[in-house]
């Protein structure tokens, strides 16, 4: 285990080598590279900081770890590792995968319930472990995790429930693959279904809730969804619970598998598309947490956007959302890569620093350590990036963090293709019905801050993949990441 220090691992969002836009401070990580897939993996000495939940609590950082503990990190913003200390707050929990502050207590998810951890005597250690919410079924299937709770703009606390893997019977019991809220009587109130591994929850600026799912059975690529009642997100293994008396709604039709996603969506009014697809490998393999950037510039030029953690690639992606025709849709971009383990949880401190919690165990990631906790801060150097990508009736509008050098804006600088996925029970799916689009108009606006692309034949419900080549900022910087992926559920009128 390593405690503290400026991370030696190289990050670069900004093209210039020495002046990074984002800097990394390592609080703690496993000390050595470790094959996290090995069955013989054993934790080292000290705190096994396999982060599964993070919450900012009154100047401290509450960190849940997978073995079942909650630690309070004191003085987590210190730049001297010696000033940071760790205090055990709660233990004996069953795989806590989320932690949220509520009325001075912490709420944590466990396999079978949401638990309120209360420190009644104020000695810094929880002495009451009270059931805050229960009512979903747990068969003992390893994959049947519970996530949350996460608070939306209406003060509702949302919980999402994984499907089991391996034995389908494990998913015929109540509410596997569902999301819902904590009811007034402490019962889980199911709201929507069709999830597989909804391991990340987060709200946007106006308080609407979103969640990530992960590529797998019925999920061709990783999606980010708008979480709300009364909808179906596609995974049919969750349908069994519709037969329960507490089911909040009935589905009018079950979409048939083995057809393109847009065709399947048309078959069921409850079936909704992701707000954003994160195309497999190009962007993402298994998404985890969602964290809103609401830092008034303290974390760079991306306020209002969502950061999305990524397990397998040990990275963080960025999602821009807009409402078109009353529904969210938008684009995704890469943000930071090269973390030492799978990124599982994200949390901002009030001063605009981002804590990144990591753990590899059970699967594997590009990171070669087993776990870790890092802090990312913005240096004030604006990265040259595609800040936004917006849909227009005849194409797209790109917004850049800095003006683009007009000389680099050539017809060859842009290309676009679109594709969708097959809706199928298979584990992951490929891009299908791929089509190249002609770009028949490029317009530079606001001195290069914006570029309008007129694109021929855009297709609703398809992912539109934009590739750029050779774009430079006025001072010669290359784009941090040249591509963007817009999920064009609706074409604005």
């Amino acid at each position, binding site marked *: 285990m390593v405690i503290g220090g400026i991370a030696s691992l190289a990050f670069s969002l900004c093209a210039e080598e020495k002046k990074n836009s984002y800097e990394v401070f390592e609080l703690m990580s496993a000390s050595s590279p470790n094959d996290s897939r090995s*069955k*013989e*993996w*054993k*934790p080292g000495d000290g705190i*096994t900081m396999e982060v599964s939940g993070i919450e900012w609590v009154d100047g401290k950082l509450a960190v849940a770890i*997978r*073995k*079942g503990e909650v630690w309070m990190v004191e003085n987590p913003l210190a730049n001297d590792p010696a000033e940071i200390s760790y205090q055990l707050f709660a*233990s*004996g*929990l*069953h*795989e806590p995968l989320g932690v949220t502050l509520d009325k001075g207590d912490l709420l944590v998810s*466990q*396999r*079978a*319930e949401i*638990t*309120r951890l209360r420190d*009644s005597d104020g000695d810094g250690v929880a*002495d*009451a*472990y*009270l*059931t805050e919410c*229960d009512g979903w079924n*747990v*068969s*003992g*299937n*390893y994959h049947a995790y519970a996530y949350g709770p996460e608070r939306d703009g209406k003060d509702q606390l949302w919980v999402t429930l994984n499907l089991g893997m391996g034995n389908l019977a494990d998913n015929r019991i109540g509410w596997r693959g569902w999301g819902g809220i904590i009811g007034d009587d402490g019962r889980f109130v199911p709201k929507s279904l069709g999830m597989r591994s909804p391991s990340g929850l987060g709200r946007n600026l106006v308080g609407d809730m979103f969640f990530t799912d992960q590529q797998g059975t019925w999920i061709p690529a990783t999606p980010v969804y708008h979480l709300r009642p009364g909808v179906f997100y596609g995974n049919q293994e969750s349908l069994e619970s519709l037969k329960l008396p507490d089911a909040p709604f009935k589905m009018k039709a079950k979409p*048939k598998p*083995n*057809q*393109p996603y847009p065709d399947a969506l048309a078959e069921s009014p409850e079936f909704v598309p992701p707000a954003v697809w994160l195309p497999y490998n190009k962007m993402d393999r298994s998404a985890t947490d969602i964290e809103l950037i609401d830092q008034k510039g303290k974390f760079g030029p991306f306020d209002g956007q969502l950061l999305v953690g990524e397990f397998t690639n040990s990275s963080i992606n960025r999602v821009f959302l807009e409402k078109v025709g009353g529904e969210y849709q938008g684009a995704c971009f890469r943000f930071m890569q090269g973390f030492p383990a799978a990124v599982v949880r994200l949390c901002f401190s009030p001063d605009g620093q981002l804590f990144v919690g990591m753990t590899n*165990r*059970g699967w594997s990631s590009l990171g070669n350590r087993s776990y870790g906790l890092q802090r990312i801060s913005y240096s004030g150097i604006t990265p040259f990036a595609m800040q936004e990508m917006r849909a227009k009736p005849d194409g797209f509008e790109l917004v850049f963090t800095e003006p683009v050098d007009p000389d680099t804006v050539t017809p060859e600088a842009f290309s676009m293709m679109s594709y969708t996925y*097959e809706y*199928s029970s*298979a584990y992951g*799916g*490929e*891009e*299908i*019905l*791929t089509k190249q689009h002609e770009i028949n108009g490029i317009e530079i606006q606001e001195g290069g801050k914006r570029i309008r692309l007129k694109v021929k034949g855009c297709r609703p419900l398809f992912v539109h993949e934009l590739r750029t080549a050779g774009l430079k900022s006025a001072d010669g910087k290359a784009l941090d990441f040249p591509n963007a992926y817009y999920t064009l559920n609706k074409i604005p009128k």
Partner: protein
Amino acid sequence: MKDSKCKREKPTGLVHRRNPVGWLTQQGLILFLLVTSLQAEPHVIGFERFHSAEASVEGGAILFSELGCANCHGDSPVKVERKGPKLVDLSQRVEREWLREFLRNPENGRKGSTMPSMLHGMSDENLGDILAFLGTIGKGIKFRAGRHANAERGSAIYHEKGCVACHAPTADYRGPHGSGNDFDASLAIAHPDLQAKTSLEALNLFLSSPSKYRPDSRMPHIQLEPQEAIDVAAHLLDIQASDPREVSGVDDWPESTVEEAARGKALVQKMNCAACHEIPGLKPDGVREIGGDGAHHCLSKEKVEGLPFYNLTDLQRESLLLFLQKKDGFEGDGAHLTLAALNCYACHDRDSVGGPTTAANPFFVGNEGLGDSGRLPPPLTGIGHKLKPEWLKGVLEGKAENRVRPYVKTQMPAYAAHAAGLTEWLEELDRPDDPVPLEDRADDRDVGRKLLGIQGGVNCITCHNWGEQKSLGIPAVDLSNLDKRLQPTWFRSYLLNPAEYRPGTLMPPLWPGGKSTLPDVLGGDTERQIGAIWNFIEDGEGIPEGFPDRSGGQFELVPQDRPMIQRTFFNKSGTKAILVGFPGDIHLAFDGQKGKPALIWRGAFFDAYDTWFTRAAPFGDPLSEDVYPFPEAEQAGRFRGYELDGDGNPTFIVSKEGREIREKFSVTDGKMIRMISWSDGGAPDVSHPEGVETIVEEADDRLTFTYFWK
């Protein structure tokens, strides 16, 4: 075969280039056209590979079977009879144009086809009638809705899963050790011109279940997942589109009249097509005597009306004639003829005959850390003695649970219809005359555990997996179930000299020259040591010595000065079990689903490794045998959590019928104290663990129970 009568495969350079089959790719086309006019004889792999150097009885026997002679004349010398494909639903599966040309001259449909010409002397009108009849057979297929097809992935499956054991790789394929463009295809079985013959959906249907249309297993029942089948079909047809629905099906066959079909049926009946092909509504004629008048017989060099015509080479004809002279009373040649006919030899050798051809060998991939055993299917030498009959049958049936070499990418096809017969036959064939029995003493069981291990044993687990436990090194075959697979007498003789069975194996002789290297174990008695290993495996309890021990090890929770609490999945306590370990070695499991205590036990508390660090999340158990369950009961109340007092003792809170019941547990002086209080009303019902002494103290607002042992 003890004394090999058949010819071994020769080095590639010496084999006659009789029938180079190429893909209809740009590179392959030139070669293909060059040889078309020269190469016309039937290509029977078992003959070409083993008996094409000089005429032989065995070569003739294989031809007699594989050219379908036995279907009319009886007495197949091969265990599984050669048949043609089932003639059903042809109009949906096969292009009429292709079939017409094929019937005119089978060579035009597939190079090396073993289908004889049957139609010489017939008119175009006759052929039209036959096609009209063939187009009426079958109940009709409903092709499934299109799936996504990926030819590139299909290519990977085609080249890695075993198709290239028999068929040529694609010219543009580059594997880790071989590439398609310099492949010597002389011993590969040609595909027909698939693009001319069939469609994506029809080929998908066929690949999904070959035995449905090919009952004779010459094209074996490969076991592909639905997605794999369509991917391989797309690869074979070189289809780049990803949406199968964009690919056209078989062209509609023209409508035919009832009269045409009836005339066609009569012709098909007259030709006795049903001798080889299953045709609904038609039966084969009886056995026909071999004879003919002089030049007028099936082996004639010229076509004879009313008889099948095979375009045989002189060597093939000579071989057949040699066989026919000996046919009466022919006893076969061990398993050789059948393995050659079914082309088992494409993957397996037996008694050093067969195994992957020189050309195909580089395409067998797997875990090379295991040497050739990690990528090549196992030998069939003595297979009927090696495997227990039930297991062998399961292997032949293609059962997934009988696959013990996940690292070998080539996958054993299924021979379900023939599995029972082949098993019985191989058992009989390979039964040793006087096998040395295994010295099997139950008392030696624990020595077997030690011998398998790495502390004073013969280190089996250094290389071999044991159930879920990975070996300490390379992942060689799981040993934990070998008593289910192997016959004990074979096991004994194998251990004494592994390389005799499999030359080049990484498995060392652990008893070199039959002598034990461990003189202090069972007196150095080789027979008893081998017997002890078998005994331990057969007993099925425990794991070999030397695997990292996780139970009761460094993750045992040992309560020191305060109680320890851990939630987990726990046997007899549910998926919401709350374990409480007390100093004083009395412990509790509280069932949070039922809202009641489930178990108490004395001794060691709990090993948390699986709860803390195992993804599979298995249910735990007490680290003790001294366990006292509470009586089974339905829901006692709704669990609402627990609170800890200053000493860390928990009070469980349960709500029931509108009131709150609290149960506090603590341990002092070897006794567990359970104190129950409630918010209003009378005392709740309480049950106690069996086998434990109980003292009850009653007060108005609480009940206190002391559990102790005499």
